[in-house]
């Protein structure tokens, strides 16, 4: 059973994945999120590509065509300085909120 990605966290997941691995193409990003989450989180292609476009426009990512190890053409994404800042901001906010949620649930 795979779960949908909670709303509002997709950017953060993409940013974090790229921050950890450096350059990746769309398929790798989707796979990485799926693997690292222990096959729990599945990125829908239908939301991945619009999200990547939006992040390009926001200036958080840059994209460049390159070749995979198997020498196949792919479009590689890379984090910009603005993207790194955005990641920090999103992470901080996420930690604050999830900590709060945790306390509410455990406290009850």
């Amino acid at each position, binding site marked *: 059973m795979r779960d949908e990605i909670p709303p509002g966290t997709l950017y953060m997941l993409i940013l974090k994945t790229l921050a950890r691995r450096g350059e990746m193409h*769309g*398929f790798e990003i989707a796979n990485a999120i799926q693997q690292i989450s222990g096959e729990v989180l599945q990125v829908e*292609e239908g939301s991945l*590509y*619009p999200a990547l476009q939006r992040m*390009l*426009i926001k200036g958080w990512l840059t994209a460049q065509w390159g070749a995979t190890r198997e020498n196949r053409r792919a*479009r590689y994404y890379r984090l910009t300085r603005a993207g790194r800042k955005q990641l920090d901001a999103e992470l901080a906010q996420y930690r604050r909120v999830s900590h709060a949620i945790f306390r509410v649930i455990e406290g009850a």
Partner: protein
Amino acid sequence: MWIAELWRRLRVLLDRDRFERDLQEEMRIHLEFLASEHADRDAARRRFGNSTRLREESREIWNIGGSLWRDVRYGLRSLAKARSFTALAVFTLALGIGASTAVFSLVDAVLIKPLPYPHPDRVMIPWRLPPPRSDLGLDELPWGILDLRVFERTATLFEHIGAFKSDSFNLTGMGEPELLEGIRASAGFFRALGVEPALGRFYTNEEDSPGREREAILSDRLWRSRFAADPNILGRAVELNGFSYAVIGVMPPGFAFPRAAEMPGSFNFPREPQLWVPLALTPMPYPTQPSDLAVIGRVRPGVSTAQAQAQMDLCTAELDRRMPQAKGWFRGRVVSLEHQVAGGTRRPLLLMLIAVSVVLLIACSNVANLLLIRSLGRSREFSLRAALGAGRARLVGQLLTESLLLAALAGAGGLGIAAAGLDFAKRFGPPNIPRLAEASLNLDVFLFAFAASLLTGILFGFAPAIEASRHTLIETLKDGARGSSGSRSRLRSGLLIFQVALALVLAVASGLLTRSFRELVRVDPGFNPHSVLSFTLSLPSSRYSETSSITALFDTLLRHLRAVPGVESAGIGETVPMGGTGESTVVRIVEHAGDDPKQRPDAVYTIASPGYFAAVGTPLLRGRLLAESDTAETKPVTVISKSLAERFFVGENPIGKHLALGSPRFPPMEIVGIVADVKHLSLREGPAPEMYVPYTQKPYPSMLVMRVVVRTSAGPRAAAGYIREAVHASDRDLPVAELATLSSIVDQSLTQPRFAMLLVAGFGALAVALAAIGMYGVISYSVTRRTQEIGIRMALGAARSDVLRMILIQGARFAAAGITLGIAASFLVTPLIAAFLYGIRPADPVTFAGVSLLLAAVALLACYIPARRATRLDPTLALRHE
């Protein structure tokens, strides 16, 4: 931050294809990865989802404002489909935007752009004023040396003070002699303006003194035209009025201060000065010398006009204390140079700007009405889009985009119209609009046109868009696609009435200006300008220092001129009609010994030769004219004007009475004749008392610059040749300057009122035409809507004339409401243009009635065309009309 984002979006927009291709390729590759993993191609595709939808979603992300690009493309398509509507709307708006942009570019050049001097706000001109309730007919008086010196001492807040006056200079010794118009200016003149010469230097205070003043500064134009832009001109000697002057500087291009257009007419400044020489005022003790100076000053930083005025008042008080006998004659007013230059043009230009804005408003409301009507025809389209889920905001956005597109097209067209209009104004406009040559379609003007287009787009687009989007799905269904919603037709009627009212106000204004121009042209100027040539004769003081040598030259010249075939009469005078006013002086009527000295006439004093009146065409009313028999040896005589006779010889015959000038040195002159009053500066001016003195008997001043008038039956071109020959035969070194027909001089004085009249009349005609189009549109739309109703009426027995009357009455109601509103508004507005009117009241009933009738007729005509169409309807077809 958002700017960078907008920039990235713009880049996507500009390179759409590449971004589309990238995305498509990327998704294809993704599918391949998936396929190699899943082996089942279809499953992979299923997992991936609808790739077209995905692409569209991504596209939406790129777009500026999300849907703008789509709206623009949709709007363009829909405008292209409704070609005649688009053409009419764009044309209407382009006229409005173009006219306002052209007028704005004039306003920008004359009123907004700063003068080309450093800190122009610190340059001030102090004028002396005539005493209150004096009858001089002048608004400003020249300064004398004494008052200037006192001002220089009291005006401590001024950094620099300069004095200047106009003079003409005979350039000789290098080919054809030429009369140059120039300025005698003190050294402070240039420092007050803050300018620098392009070449060389200015003269110093020491050089600006009698005996050392033989130095000249040339205008860029003179330097180029007469000296071939010689870079080694500095130090070169030129011969002016028979004296040798050294050229020490050349001014930068465009510098020509003071131009006549920027200064009071009575100072007779040249249209464009060509050279500047030292004023060289005599030091103490000052000789008695006419007051003929203008003054300019630069105040210290931070000094206001009011503070400068306070110093002027100090100077007045000081002068009043020193010369109590002349108390009241030393008042003054300090004006900033910016105000002085824009001066008389400020109000006419603002008037133009208002008139043209009204035209733009009418154009806007016209297009708004067209849009409203169009949106009714599109209600099905809107319903469909609403049914497919378009929200109200989306519909309004789409319609506004269409309006802005219209406005953008119109703005582009308007710029073209503005460029053409500006070109027209430069070619045919009056020469006395200051800085007209500087007007151009610069950045300010582009911004104005852009803002005007944007504003008009929102203005005419907003109400119709809101109205149209109100028309929801359910209503349309309920209405059976037909009901005319009440609020919408109220808005249409309101817009129509508003248009008619505005058009009436403009038409009344242009009617008033046209009628006043006709009055102006019909004024009796006191002379007959047809087939008269005049030119200026300027004698070098070096060779013509004696009165006897001057009169001898005049005698020879007149004899030569009169011998030319075709010449009917020739004369010499200090001024010609409409060519400027002579000096005025207070005179004493010898026979009225008991008169209050304060009530003495102040008469314009003009030196004239025999033949002058015949040449100018001023009729003799009583007595005789100046004659050859009036010589230096015979008794002094004078001819006076009708107004002098009527005002100061009430109930008595002036002939045989005597006039005496202020100084007892001059013998009294016997009045021998009365001539008609003559206009000197403009046809608008009232008659001023005037006296003419024969040149053989003139007590003062020198006659170095005189005007020669020749009435001839030969054509002006042939006559010009004879005139030059006659002048050269009298003195080979004398130039013939400012040779012009008298009628062209009169005509020139009419260019400004004519231009203003034509412009406002053009705007008025445009407004009426736009209102007529608006009326036509609304009525013909209503006829279409009421086709079925009209069919029923006709089926029930209504005659065609009944139908015609019904439609016309509907139009007449609109027209009547608009005209009533417009008349009320005109009564409020026309007093504002009273200053531009001549011989006519702002509330002139003839104009009001005539214009109202005209507008009513035009409105009814605009209704008549659709009304006739209604009467031609076939009732059986009309009943079935949907």
